[in-house]
């Protein structure tokens, strides 16, 4: 809540460009579950860093939504992992659109990216997600082959382990809250409590606000420095 004069010597068009809206066509809609699908869009000249999000709008509507990018940096398309929400106008309308329909995107936005200073060594990353919060992690993992990581994914049922074949064996840990079986049964926080946390890891957490705050609190209470925890909340 500050009125500010921004002190830059960049031209006004610079700021305009940052919020530039691009048009892209829908290339594919791939159903993962009854309520979750992958929307594939033309990439055109859209560049991003794995972990970032874009703002998506259906032309003619003023009802834009933010979506983390699900696909890696170096492929010629953009995938978005979308969960249909019963009263979520946009997610329902998007799914009803035909392949070839045009959408508006702007971005990329966000700072939820892998730390450059840690990428060259053998730093371990712990990724914690719930539901479609796995989206930025898939992009990070596929964009950085050889990454030293563990991905902990909280879902209701085992069949929501989207595209699990994309992760190296042993790196993808599923926590199911509604289904007992071969996977860990319980919340991601309980998984961390049960299995222990690595003090030498950099933590990235993405998902709903309650989970992000619960996990962050637990990590901080157990000695993880706040600068080694990055979060992205899905509202």
């Amino acid at each position, binding site marked *: 809540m500050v*009125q*500010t004069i921004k002190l830059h010597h960049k031209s006004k068009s610079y700021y305009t460009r940052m919020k530039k809206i691009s048009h892209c066509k829908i290339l594919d809609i791939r159903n993962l579950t009854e309520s979750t699908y992958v929307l594939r869009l033309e990439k055109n000249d859209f560049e991003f860093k794995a972990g970032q999000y874009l703002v998506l709008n259906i032309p003619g509507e003023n009802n834009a939504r933010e979506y983390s990018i699900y696909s890696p940096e170096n492929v010629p398309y953009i995938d978005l992992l979308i969960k249909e929400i019963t009263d979520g106008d946009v997610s329902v309308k998007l799914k009803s659109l035909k392949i070839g329909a045009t959408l508006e995107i702007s971005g990329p*936005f966000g700072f939820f990216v892998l730390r450059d200073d840690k990428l060259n060594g053998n730093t371990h990353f712990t990724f914690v997600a719930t539901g479609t919060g796995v989206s930025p992690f898939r992009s990070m993992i596929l964009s950085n082959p050889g990454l030293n990581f563990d991905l902990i994914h909280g879902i209701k049922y085992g069949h929501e382990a989207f595209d699990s074949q994309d992760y190296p064996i042993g790196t993808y840990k599923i926590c199911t809250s509604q289904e007992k079986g071969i996977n860990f049964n319980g919340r991601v926080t309980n998984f961390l409590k049960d299995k222990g946390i690595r003090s030498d890891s950099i933590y990235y957490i993405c998902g709903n606000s309650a989970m992000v705050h619960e996990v962050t609190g637990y990590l901080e209470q157990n000695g993880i420095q706040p600068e080694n925890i990055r979060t992205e909340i899905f509202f």
Partner: protein
Amino acid sequence: MTTSTRRLPVWMKTPLPSGKEYISLKNLAANQQLNTICVSGNCPNKAECWGASTASFMILGEKCTRNCRFCNVINQIPDPVDMKEPLRLAETIRALGIKHGVITSVTRDDLEDGGASFWALTIKTIKEKNPGVTIEALIPDFYAKDELIGKVIEAKPEVISHNMETVRRLTPKVRDVARYDRSLKVIEIIAKSGIVPKSGIMVGLGETEEEVFETMDDLLKAGCKVLTIGQYLQPSAHHLKIEAFIEPAIFIKYREAALAKGFSMVESSPLVRSSYHAERHINA
């Protein structure tokens, strides 16, 4: 995110800024190629603030590493730090004839020291080039690290502020990465230094009066002396919705309560922003 607009209540409406001094400052800022969101954002207080030779500047770029749901600053990977910015800012303050400058910054979690050294350099440069100019440093939380906040303290601004922004319960919903208790610790570190500690909150986000009073108590316990309270306004459809337009009488109630509890100075009215009447707070 549904687009919705709410009509402003009558007490939020203000006359358009005008006046010779306002126009000349506006033109000077434009000539210096400054992007003024005081103007482009149509801040209701800009004529009054600029007329009082007070202005607010944002350093360390315009891309913030945090994604607070109330804030209009863009959340992107920041650009490299512009080391010429302190001098340019010092010269601009001289050119504008500013007597009291409020400096704020984006949060730079990408920098090892969060930008603390740059903050110190900026304050020192302004003071060197503008003897007599007083400064309020409105800082990010620096993860409440003593050594980082200490760098800003050593540069000796007259006031250091750090905004709580909202009450404890709503902090996770309103702010990104920040913690209520961590922000209180920032205030505590400032207060221990002897520099005037200041904070601010927005209301209309769904808080109760009791929660506002609790935040006042928490801030006082941390040593805070100056408090600003203003109405939250939703910058765009992407931001948190306004839960309520708080009536002016409630702002008066908050001001009286805060003063009675022990704050030295309180700005509380619908149009108050954290730098409103900032020049007065050096005496708190």
